[in-house]
């Protein structure tokens, strides 16, 4: 089942396009990480999916409906914006009351239990919370709304490593407990690796790679060996990137099949390496052989 389907999605701000021709499908029931360089259109995509922004071109369908089209649609999609905004003048208790007033499916027990477990004082004003606590409060509101899909836009960007770890762990538990789909953007691949089972690499509005994290890791190989033209590689090996020195060639290939050529030394790839390779090599075509000194 698809939870998010975008077709040729574009968004123009005054003169600049923040997103152009983005086509993407995300399956339900997964925690999907959305990575990409600054300006790739991650936030714009999530904003459109939540209904905060209207697309200029293309179509998008989220949980089977048009984002922001009505109360039912809004109830299905939770969204925690970048910087996790909360009302500084309202107490935690009042935020939960806000959630209960504005959401028919609000889970009061879940919300109060989470706040209790986080060790937060319900009487405290949200303006006095630390960045991590604020993010936790925003996440609590997002989860207690009981959406089908939760969209998180760089929720941990402003947090210190410890708060980040706690936040993500907490998110994992909530996902496991309530079985909701999550799409989460981040710069920090390490964080995504901890929580995501699916990954989308978005570069300049285009999906460079999409898939299950485990499969991606299993099918990508870093090959190094004597210098050779990448055109001579077997057809089933898709070259992601290639580097050449005078004597050596290093290529990153994607293939389902095992690497049989004995000339190659096959290296293991971390998820971060994989993402960075895709981000720094915009074209999928095999690059021409050139010497890098």
């Amino acid at each position, binding site marked *: 089942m698809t939870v998010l389907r975008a077709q040729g999605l574009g968004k123009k701000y005054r003169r600049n396009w923040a997103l152009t021709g983005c086509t993407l499908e995300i399956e339900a029931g997964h925690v999907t990480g959305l990575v990409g360089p600054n300006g790739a259109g991650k936030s714009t995509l999530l904003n459109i999916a939540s209904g905060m922004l209207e697309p200029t071109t293309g179509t998008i369908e989220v949980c089977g409906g048009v984002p922001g089209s009505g*109360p039912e649609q809004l109830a299905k999609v939770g969204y925690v914006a970048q910087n996790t905004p909360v009302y500084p003048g309202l107490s935690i208790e*009042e935020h939960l009351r806000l959630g209960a*007033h504005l959401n028919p499916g609000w889970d009061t027990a879940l919300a109060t239990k989470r706040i209790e477990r986080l060790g937060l004082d319900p009487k405290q004003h949200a303006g006095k919370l630390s960045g991590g606590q604020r993010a936790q409060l925003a996440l609590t509101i997002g989860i207690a709304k009981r959406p089908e899909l939760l969209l998180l836009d760089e929720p941990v960007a402003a947090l210190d490593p410890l708060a980040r770890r706690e936040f993500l762990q907490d998110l994992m538990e909530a996902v496991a407990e309530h079985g909701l789909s999550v799409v989460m953007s981040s710069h920090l691949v390490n964080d995504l690796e901890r929580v995501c089972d699916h990954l989308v690499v978005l570069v300049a509005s285009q999906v460079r790679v999409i898939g299950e994290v485990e499969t991606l890791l299993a099918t990508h190989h870093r090959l190094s060996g004597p210098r050779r033209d990448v055109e001579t590689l077997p057809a089933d090996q898709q070259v992601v990137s290639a580097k050449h020195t005078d004597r050596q060639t290093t290529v990153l290939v994607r293939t389902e099949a095992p690497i049989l050529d004995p000339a190659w030394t096959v290296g293991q790839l971390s998820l971060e390496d994989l993402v960075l390779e895709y981000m720094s090599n915009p074209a999928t075509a095999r690059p021409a052989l050139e010497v890098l000194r």
Partner: protein
Amino acid sequence: MTWLAWRQFRFPALSVFAGLIGIGVVLAITGPKLVGRTDYSDQDVLYGATILALYLLPAVIGVFWGAPMITRELEAGTHSLVWNQSITRKRWLTTKLGVGVPAAMVAAGLLSLAVSWWASPIDALASTQTEPGMLTRLSPVVFGARAIAPIGYAAFALVLGVAAGIVLRRTVVAMAVTLVALAAVLIVVPLLVRPYLLPPLEETVSITSSNITNITGNQSGVVEEIGVQNPAGVWVLANETVDPAGNVVSPLPDFVQNCMPKPGTQPPPHGSMQTCLAQLDAHGYHQRVTYQPGSRFWPLQWLELALFLALSALLTWFCFRRIRHLS
């Protein structure tokens, strides 16, 4: 949603209402002493202050209630929190305005009621006077500080602030624009719209030495216009001399230029003035007074209220159109 809208609005709302209670106490103490007097010249300061208060209230409502209503959310990013609960933006805006507009109208209504009551002896005296100096409740400045017109101003100011906030997105800028736009409307309406809400009455009288009130000349001593006594308790729009064909004459014809007293000279002997003005009558010149009579006070108040409520409705429609595209 009403709970949230009230929770966010209660501090600015209660501040204004606390101020109104303060004004109310002052008026309640001083008001009863005004009844039955024939000279209110010692009340100038308080009288002026009550009128000022009624013009400041819409400004405060527009600037401190209306403008920040949306911009504070946009600046703090909390709009993305509240717009992602299971409630549409339209309902959110409906509730915000549904709390703000009635509160603004009640605040203005209460203040206007208190001031109208306080000033009623002064207004009653003014309506019997014929000198141009005394301000009747129909005169442009006082009219907007009496009865029901301020209710319309308050509703308009609030929606104007909200609309400015939606368009400009920044609190301080929206506040400044709201203030300027509100001031412009409150100046333009009495000058250019209110006089014509109902067709004014005209009265043409002979100019005699008993009804003439003023002779105005220019620097070289040419008499440009004269005025006659106004009817009591009216709002005079024009008091001008017309020739037999009904055209306004200014400066006055030559045959009276010489016999009129020049500026800075002694008042003329009674007889010479009489013969001078008699020439005007003989040549068919008359004085035409254009005015709104005192009995039009309430009809004009209702029309003014309706006008401002219509403007508010227009701005509200605009707000709802724009809120969809806001992000």
